[in-house]
């Protein structure tokens, strides 16, 4: 037996709560994360939950990170093991020298523990049952009691927790008092019976700054409010349902006429994804800003309408909160696996605009921008979120809105323009950018009406099966897509401290893990220039970034290196120069994984002198 000294760390550790879903643990766990945040220490929490409502295992992981590393880290320094079903693997997942916190009311055989970890038993059930008789209360307050015990062990300021409870139950004084009481039950027991603190502690810091703590889905929904969306049609699907829920909640607060109380929005829960996207396309055709939120299976169902949007040139926005596919896949696990499915969605030759936000702040900005892009380009815009940023609270910069910002409604011909004798051809490229003018229904008694159809037609929207007319239109659609390159968010490049022949391309929720991996790799002597892609079609700087480096790693959260395929296909790049780094087990990608995979590849690239091999 080796003597393992306990892991010692201030403001830098990972704690994981193993719970049963439906047990009310989520709010206590979130309270834990928020209390650390209020002490000025950045945290990055993640829910790992089943596709189920009650009874199955669920985990909540909080990475406490003074350095602000918001990606998942991997490994667990302290396990709060509240679920007997997963005990064995929870105990096994603790890092050597880590801590196990458990409910010691019932004796557990010694063989169920490990000798290289520190075990902390608190008789949570006994404390709870001696105080509460109502079964539901027992269940809920047990969670607050362990939170109290943890506050003593980790030196979390109980006043901060009390304040948070106070904010939560502002209007419910009875609940406030009983929660605070439960908190102190746990805390006092720990202080009296255990050695407090342990070697993992939280210390007040100033590292959070003015950042906010928000879920990406809620941020995207708020972006839709600010971006002027008035019609939302959706169908429930994990992990995107909370986009529509949040849009509803934001609209209730922000979008009612103060005088009449009437709604400046319309939300319809469709009977399926086909109806949802149909409503969005009908509304957009008629000049409203409309969107739907869905996930992979929903995008599959919407294919026909996506093609219509592309070909008939009707603006629309789909927020795709990606989850692990194919088919039903893993509905509650994260991936970036719909890149190809969305980029080339629907039958025939199509290409669609994709936006890849990295966090809630960008989800807000890109969501608002997506409506400008949809109307400017008169086409489908995909906002590519994923479960990791969509359904987890993430620390990000505060949201900003320029008060003078007007919406870009695109090329819309008005009754005045028609009366002035402007030539209106619905599919006529008047400016050379591939974008024609459109009219809203009901504009003019005798001018500007047209018949929208998914069949081929000429520049004046007249039905045609003439090959030359068809090809002319398809070429214009390509020109329009080229125009999109300069309108969508540009890639962001960050160069290594030293000149390097190697680069890395990444996107979306991979960002924080990538940033941290760069630090790890630099310590190992590997320097990489970084390019974060934020949209498709790719800006010309993507091709030049690849050209400027011998090898470029493309880090993605899918099996088939989908973004890499897209880069190769769209830019005619030799695939050998793009090295895929792929993480696709449904857990969020970690810095350890990226640094390990890239580091190993870099080590292989190091040329060993021939002399050394011979000797």
């Amino acid at each position: 037996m080796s003597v393992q000294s306990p892991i010692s760390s201030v403001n830098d550790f990972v704690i994981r709560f193993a719970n049963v879903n439906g047990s009310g643990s989520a709010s206590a766990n979130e309270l834990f994360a928020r209390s650390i945040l209020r002490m000025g220490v950045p945290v990055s929490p993640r829910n790992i939950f089943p596709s189920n409502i009650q009874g199955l295992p669920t985990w909540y992981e909080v990475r406490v990170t003074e350095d602000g590393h918001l990606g998942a880290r991997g490994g667990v320094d302290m396990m709060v093991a509240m679920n007997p079903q997963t005990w064995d693997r929870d105990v096994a997942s603790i890092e050597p020298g880590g801590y196990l916190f458990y409910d010691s009311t019932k004796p557990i055989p010694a063989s169920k523990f490990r000798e290289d970890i520190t075990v902390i038993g608190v008789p949570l059930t006994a404390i709870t049952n001696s105080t509460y008789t109502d079964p539901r209360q027992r269940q809920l307050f047990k969670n607050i009691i362990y939170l109290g015990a943890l506050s003593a062990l980790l030196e979390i300021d109980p006043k901060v927790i009390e304040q948070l409870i106070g904010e939560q139950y502002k209007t419910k004084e009875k609940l406030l008092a009983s929660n605070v009481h439960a908190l102190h039950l746990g805390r006092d027991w720990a202080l009296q019976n255990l050695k407090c603190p342990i070697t993992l502690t939280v210390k007040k810091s100033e590292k959070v700054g003015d950042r906010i703590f928000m879920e990406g889905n809620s941020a995207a929904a708020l972006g839709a409010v600010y971006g002027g969306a008035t019609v939302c049609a959706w169908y429930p699907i994990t992990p995107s349902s909370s986009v529509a829920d949040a849009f509803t909640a934001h609209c209730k607060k922000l979008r009612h006429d103060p005088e009449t109380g009437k709604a400046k929005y319309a939300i319809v829960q469709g009977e399926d994804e086909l109806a949802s996207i149909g409503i969005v396309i009908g509304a957009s055709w008629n000049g409203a800003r409309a969107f739907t939120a869905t996930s992979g299976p929903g995008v599959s169902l919407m294919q026909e309408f996506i093609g219509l949007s592309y070909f008939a040139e009707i603006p629309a926005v789909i927020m795709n909160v990606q989850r692990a596919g194919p088919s039903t896949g893993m509905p509650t696990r994260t991936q970036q696996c719909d890149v190809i499915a969305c980029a080339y969605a629907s039958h025939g030759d199509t290409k669609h605009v994709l936006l890849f936000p990295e966090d809630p702040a960008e989800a807000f900005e890109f969501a608002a921008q997506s409506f400008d892009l949809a109307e400017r380009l008169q086409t489908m815009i995909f906002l590519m979120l994923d479960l990791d940023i969509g359904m987890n609270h993430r620390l990000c910069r505060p949201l900003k809105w320029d008060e003078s910002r007007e919406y870009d409604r695109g090329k819309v011909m008005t009754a005045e323009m028609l009366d002035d004798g402007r030539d209106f051809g619905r599919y006529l490229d008047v400016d050379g950018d591939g974008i024609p003018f459109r009219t809203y229904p009901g504009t003019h008694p005798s001018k500007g009406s047209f018949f929208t159809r998914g069949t081929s037609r000429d520049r004046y929207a007249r039905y045609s099966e003439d090959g030359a007319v068809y090809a002319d239109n398809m070429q214009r659609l390509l020109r329009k897509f080229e125009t999109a390159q300069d309108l969508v968010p540009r890639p962001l490049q960050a160069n290594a401290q030293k000149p390097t022949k190697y680069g890395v391309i990444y996107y979306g929720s991979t960002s924080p893990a990538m940033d941290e991996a760069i630090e790890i790799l630099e310590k190992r002597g590997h320097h990489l220039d970084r390019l974060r892609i934020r949209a498709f079609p790719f800006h010309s700087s993507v091709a030049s970034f690849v050209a400027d480096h011998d090898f470029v790693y493309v880090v993605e959260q899918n099996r088939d290196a989908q973004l890499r395929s897209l880069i190769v296909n769209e830019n005619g790049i030799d695939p050998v120069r793009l090295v895929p780094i792929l993480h696709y087990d449904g857990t969020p990608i970690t810095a350890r994984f990226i640094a390990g995979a890239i580091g190993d590849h870099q080590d292989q690239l190091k040329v060993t002198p021939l002399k050394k091999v011979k000797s």
Partner: protein
Amino acid sequence: MTYIAKPKFQHPGLPKNDLGYTRRDYEGKISTLCAGCGHDSITASIIEACFHLSIEPHRVAKISGIGCSSKTPDYFLGNSHGFNSVHGRMPSVLTGANLANRDLIYLGVSGDGDSASIGFGQFAHSIRRGVNMTYIVENNGVYGLTKGQFSATADRGSKSKKGVTNADSAIDLVAIALQLGATFVARSFSGDKTQLVPMIEAAIKHKGAAFIDVISPCIAFNNHAGSTKSFDYVREHNDAVNRLDVITGREPITVDYAPGTVQVVEQHDGTRLALRKLDADYDVHDRLAAMTFLQKHAAKGQVVTGLLYVDAESEDLHDRLNTVDAPLNTLAAKDLSPGSAALDKINASLR
């Protein structure tokens, strides 16, 4: 035959409506359907109804799915925007369009393949939601564009042109619409313009989901002996429960009706529907009785036509959603963006 340009010439003495428009102003392109197609009669009835009602020809949105019926919006109201969308998805596209601008008139044109098969779900849900629209199904019991396959409204035991007997039960869209809560339900026959024109007028004036099932024989594939959707069969089995006169404006009802034979229904906008009863016991306000009546007569092989149900106190989707009076598509950034001060507050609540 779209290559034939429709002559723009019109007789100077053509009658004009209250807005000064002639019937020609409500026409569209030349039909490309088969000569004698029932759908063309429906097109003519729509033109006639819009002319009568003095609707501004550009204030209608014509939305359809895919199929012969769905082509027809190109043949009427040429100054209105039309949208020939995706097979079976007219109802969702129309719902979205209606949400964007509540001030236009929404005319949904669909067929039996479009609404009873691929789009059965969308048909049902648009009616459940009470979308303010006139939903016309041009019902011929076959897939015409793909040359004569049975549709879901083909009666069990009826024969196809090739002699195949239909073994599946038929879907009666009128019965379903009643069950789903449509606030205006009617059935007519494309060969009976005097019944159909006022029915379309009443439906357009109705607030809420107005559904009209129009039996419209397919001259090419479903007009033979053994079909229950042929001109001959429908003429022989047509059982009209009432005849309709639509009275707009405030003028008094001047037509002389025999006492007890007329039921007057006043709709939201003041439009009055004078129903001349052909079946003395039929009550257009009794949804349950209507359903029973339909079932009984269907069992006898009769095609019940007329205004079958109307709720004069109907509401629409906008009422349910409590949306603002101004069309949503007219709201600008100042109406929709809550502004930076509100965002600062939100930021503060997220710390």
